[in-house]
């Protein structure tokens, strides 16, 4: 981390103590940190300082976090990590649909935050050139030839299953909402058909031998969506 030029992180939260503690944790990890206490200040910071990543609290005093996100997305495509309170699935989905890349539920651990941030920053570095071959765990995917190997043995995926897998690989480390995936693969009329998605996830996990837990590559975010991680970290 120290070798690369320091990434610039903008922390947007109205609680001063939270901002201070995030600053300690992020500076310790080698990031450069700027703070904003409101949506208005945050938008100014993004426009002038062009941060590499924004950590955005959904419950801001002046504007709702989702509004900030929409305005922010007009300015630039910087990755955004949302901080949200528990039991607010609708808020999380709205934020993700408005362009957030991932979220964390408060109270979260510093280690979790750093892991998510690293994944998002890594994505920015590599998303431009995904390459034709992609490897995760024992799985090798040839995106152009539409071939999948598991431990060197070919795996038969249906055309739709491959489409879903490809979408995850192209959006790795990003949290995709159910609605977003359904819309992309089956079209707008299928946005409510989560049964399709459950079925395909079951098939893909079975065929690729992926575990349905934190050690797996396809992570479930309850009631919200799925996140594909190329390097899963087993739960502490």
């Amino acid at each position, binding site marked *: 981390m120290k070798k690369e030029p320091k990434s610039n992180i903008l922390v947007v939260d109205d609680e001063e103590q939270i901002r201070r503690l995030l600053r300690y944790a992020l500076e310790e990890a080698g990031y450069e940190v700027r703070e904003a206490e409101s949506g208005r200040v945050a938008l100014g910071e993004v426009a002038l300082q062009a941060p590499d990543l924004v950590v955005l609290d959904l419950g801001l005093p002046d504007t709702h976090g989702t509004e900030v996100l929409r305005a922010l997305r007009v300015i630039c495509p910087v990755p955004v990590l949302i901080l949200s309170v528990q039991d607010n*699935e609708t808020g999380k989905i709205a934020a993700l649909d408005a362009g957030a890349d991932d979220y964390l539920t408060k109270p979260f651990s510093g280690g979790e935050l750093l892991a998510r941030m690293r994944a998002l920053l890594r994505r920015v570095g590599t998303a431009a050139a995904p390459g034709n071959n992609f490897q995760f765990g024992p799985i090798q995917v040839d995106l152009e030839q539409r071939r999948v190997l598991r431990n060197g043995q070919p795996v038969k995926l249906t055309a739709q299953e491959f489409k879903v897998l490809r979408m995850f690989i192209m959006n790795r480390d990003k949290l995709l909402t159910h609605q977003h995936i359904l819309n992309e693969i089956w079209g707008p009329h299928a946005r409510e058909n989560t049964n399709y998605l459950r079925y395909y996830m*079951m098939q893909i996990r079975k065929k690729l031998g992926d575990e349905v837990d934190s050690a797996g590559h396809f992570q479930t975010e309850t*009631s919200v969506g799925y996140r594909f991680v190329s390097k899963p970290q087993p739960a502490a």
Partner: protein
Amino acid sequence: MPDPKPTPGRPHGALRDYSLVAGVMVLVTVAGSYAPLSYHALGYVYLLAIIALSLSIGRWPALAAAVAGAMAWDFFFVPPKLSFAGIHFDEGLLLTTYFAVALIGSQLSALRAELYRAGLLAESERMHQTLLDSVSHEMMTPLAVFRSAIEQLETHDAEKRNRVVVELQIATDRLDRLVGNLLSQNRLESGVLRPRMDWCECHEVVASARRAVGSRIGDHALEIEIPSDMPIFRADAALLEQAIAQLLANAALHTPPESKIRVSAAVKAKPKQIHIVVTDTGPGVPVEIREAIFEKFTRGPLARKGGLGLGLSIVRGFMRAQGGEVSVDTAPGGGARFTLSLPNDEQAPVPVG
């Protein structure tokens, strides 16, 4: 007609009271005309009826009963019959008694209602105080740990510092769970809980619940048994996940270390239901409290000190919000077996391709 203003504390009883009065008076009059009684004796039957009525109704209906009784007795029974004449000193005295009795009786009835309400209020205040006491105890304990731990962090003994950090972690988790439970309970009681029913896959829900329990599972061996042909079903995944997580955490807390906890799932045909079952090998739940443990602020006899007794009431609230239920019985081996059931009326259409 007397003013039909409802008696305080019995706002909707006025109409019922008047109907009762009319009914009883008609009954006494009809029965009196067939009974071989003197009109004097019948006067006392009316008095008895008024006493009985006034003890259970408001003041104005009681007075109405006195008026109706007096008129009926005089008109139908006091000679000359079918006329209001014939009232002398004796009859007049009895009629006065009707009104006195009506007033005294209804006053007693009002007093009784007042006492009953006061009793309820005292009970609710006592509950409130108990709740406040236990919430503040549950909050102050982790805060006391924080304060003491921060002081002890100044030590240079690395091993001691690590021990203190572990205590801080435990206290933080405890406070986190407490606030989470209070918020969930509040969500249930304030009626803002809107379940988002969607298709759920059992492996995913159980894995998420396992993740939510985190280190609270301790060194218990968790066994997950989900049939390979388990269908997807309708539920609010977030609520179901929290219900399972609560049962897992309870099982880990109330059973010996390293004992086995099992989560299994099944489809039932009659009625069409999905069952998710959490079984442990602990002491089980005594039959006599199997219903009570799902009430809030109720804790089992073997429960450790601390905690508010909200966990299982939240589980039940979350399950009922989804149209499901939770129940407990004894596993064949003797441990507690909690069953979460959900309706399974809809079949998920399987996509083609």
